[in-house]
């Protein structure tokens, strides 16, 4: 009895310990980026984010002038009871009393620093990265006559609104269509149902990239290119196969009895769909909404092709790509940018997450 309890306790400890370890492993990079987003560019370049924790650092206490001490850097030098070559002194030599001697600079102009280890933290935080990401940079133009014109860069609010305007309809439209389709495939009988369903499933494996050129041609002919409607339709098309399949699995697993009693009471397909199926499938709808929202929000390629990279329609993902500069020189801004662009998807996820766990099981348990 006792040993059984003990075993249970140990087992629980093992599972929880492993989970904790995994959680820590997964969170550390995010934490690092989060801390870095508050550090200034030079600090990021010179030291790691973990320097915010207490650590020991070498601090200079005094300096020795090698020329005055009569040292010859080309031979073996002896300072404060330590001897070594120039290269050894450059790397740093420890003295018996815990200090370190380090040669700084070249042989002609250098000096020897006496350093000791002290506990320190580097808490030099700044909001500059966020300010630049959200508020945009300022650009200076010096005219030939010497006057300086300052042009403010674009801020992120426009990109945020554009991303919303793309993402929300691109999430809602495919869900609406797919729910109708899934219901039809699951509960209506019509000729070619099986074939059509197989075609939908087959479309799951078609990579969307192969459709870019033909769709762009069609859009051009229809004069749709570069409009929001174009990208809503594109995302709807690309998301519809998965949405239909996912919702079909869920809807087809709903108990037949409920529907049959509704039909006996004289309900039409439309009534059954709106009054029974939709309320019952909210978990599946919500979990697909999360998937589709995240995918569209993070999409870069599709928007680039169909919205045309027009600065007026710039999305958050494009803004993030532009923020690092033409050659990646401003990559430190990505740390702050990542967190800013993460806000909305996180809000959506947490807002819908209670459906998510239920929804993940969508269609997996029949009964």
């Amino acid at each position, binding site marked *: 009895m006792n040993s059984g309890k003990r075993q249970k306790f140990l087992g629980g400890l093992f599972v929880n310990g492993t989970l904790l370890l995994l959680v820590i492993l997964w969170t550390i990079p995010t934490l690092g980026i989060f801390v870095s987003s508050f550090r200034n560019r030079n600090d990021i370049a010179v030291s790691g984010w973990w320097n915010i924790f207490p650590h020991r650092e070498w601090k200079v206490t005094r300096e020795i002038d090698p020329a005055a001490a009569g040292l010859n850097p080309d031979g073996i030098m002896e300072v404060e009871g330590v001897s070594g070559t120039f290269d050894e002194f450059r790397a740093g030599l420890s003295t018996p009393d815990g200090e370190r001697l380090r040669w700084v600079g*070249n042989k002609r102009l250098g000096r020897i620093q006496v350093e000791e280890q002290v506990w320190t933290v580097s808490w030099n935080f700044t909001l500059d990265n966020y300010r630049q990401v959200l508020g945009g940079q300022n650009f200076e*133009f*010096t005219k030939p006559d010497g006057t300086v014109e300052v042009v403010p860069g674009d801020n992120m609010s426009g990109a945020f609104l554009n991303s919303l305007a793309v993402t929300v309809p691109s999430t809602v439209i495919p869900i609406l269509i797919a729910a109708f389709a899934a219901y039809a495939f699951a509960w209506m009988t019509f000729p070619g149902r099986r074939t059509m369903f197989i075609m939908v499933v087959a479309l799951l494996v078609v990579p969307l990239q192969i459709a*870019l050129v033909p769709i762009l*041609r069609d859009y051009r002919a229809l004069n749709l290119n570069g409009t929001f409607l174009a990208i809503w339709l594109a995302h709807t098309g690309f998301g519809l196969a998965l949405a239909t399949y996912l919702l079909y699995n869920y809807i087809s697993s709903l108990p037949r009895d409920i529907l049959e009693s509704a039909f006996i009471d004289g309900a039409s397909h439309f009534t059954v769909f709106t009054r029974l199926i939709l309320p019952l499938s909210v978990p599946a709808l919500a979990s697909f909404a999360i998937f589709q929202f995240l995918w569209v929000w993070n999409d870069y390629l599709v928007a*680039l092709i169909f919205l045309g990279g027009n600065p007026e329609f710039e999305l958050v993902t494009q803004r993030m790509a532009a923020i690092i500069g*033409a*050659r990646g*020189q401003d990559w430190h801004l990505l740390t702050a940018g990542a967190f800013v662009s993460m806000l909305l998807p996180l809000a959506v996820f947490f807002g819908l997450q209670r459906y998510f766990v239920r929804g993940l099981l969508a269609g997996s348990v029949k009964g």
Partner: protein
Amino acid sequence: MNKSRLLILLSLLLTASILLAACGGKATATPMPEQPTQPEQPPMPEVDFDVMPGGALEEALKGTYKGTTVTVDGAFEGNDPDGVKMKQSVAKFEELTGIKVNYIGNKEFEATISVRVDAGDAPDIADFPQPGKAAQYVAAGKVVDVKSFMSEEWLSRQYNQSWRDMATLNGVEAGVFHRFNGKSLVWYPKKAWDAAGYEIPETWDELMALNQQIADDGDTPWCIGIESGAATGWPATDWTEEMMLRTTSLENYDKWVAGELPFDSPEVKKAIETWSEIWFNDAYVFGGRSSIVSTFFGDSPAPMFQDPPQCWMHKQGNFITGFFPSGTVAGVDYGFFYLPPVDPAYGKPFLVAGDVMVMFNDRPEVRALMEYFTVPQSASGWLEGGGALAAHKTATPDMYGVELERGIAELVAQATSFRFDGSDLMPGEVGAGSFWEHITSYVAGSEDLDTAMKAIDATWPK
């Protein structure tokens, strides 16, 4: 009920975003080019840049094409620093002609331009950072030859022959150069440099003597890093091109770029061996040869700015100042000099990379903008805000608002010849593939020079 509230919320969001889209949607409509209907033409206004006589720009300045739009695509985003400079550069053109310039670039330009051209949705003008990449569109007959509407006399007045040669692909003058970056520059930490009493080298022997002097002082002269993700190795191709220009003739350089002179030839190998003398000497490179391949090119100059400097020289194009620590000032914290010539017989060549404007659709307002791009004032955003130099012969030092670019422009003016970054002109499989890959293996020491050169030659498309 909770569920219905969710549905209401979703539909509210949907309508809100449709409204948003409706507000922003207007800008997509591209107005059709209007035919000039006014019988009386106002005279051309006075402008502070040269205009090609009898061209479309002259007509446009009279207001003939007012209300039309020209779409320009490129490799930088409309809202990033280069995008702002582009907007600034064309502002005067828009104001004077009433033609709207719609810049739509993005960072995946190379991928999206081919999709766009294939789908028949080519931009009016594309700003190619590598002229070689435009070659496929020239071969497909999609590009308008600039000679078809610009006179020989005008083009040769605005450009050095070198620039026009570099823009000529398959016999078609595929575009006009707009702006460029100088690559043959060596950066140094000015304050510490002056304190240490080092002299700027004018010849290769002086440079090698300086290397030894710095090494004798116990320091490492160079900071070198070639890591750049999938493009690792490109700084090594720059060094190879610099040495090709300095150890052999321009004809050989051109033949090498065109694929007629193999990598496995004594000329190319000599060029690589020349820089190897510096790179493979552990006393000359900060961190030693083994650190070159693993150091990010943008981080590599950082040790130069430590106090005291860990290295004293770094060769890179003028864009590298963007990577220098914030707060460092040109002329105070750092300076630059021209990478000295090796063999005086080949003069003072200058390696450059730049942007060429390629025209896809032939309409009068597009011609007008192309003609505007042939005057240095069309690059004013970069000249006044820094970041690039004007490729035009008619550019003068007083057009530059930034001391650094003006200094580079003066160095460029002293050069005896120009050549474009060779790897950017080679076919993609080589210039952006095997050349990077095998030169990296050579620097890392996993391949010897002969093996690496033969391997590159083998990938050259037949």
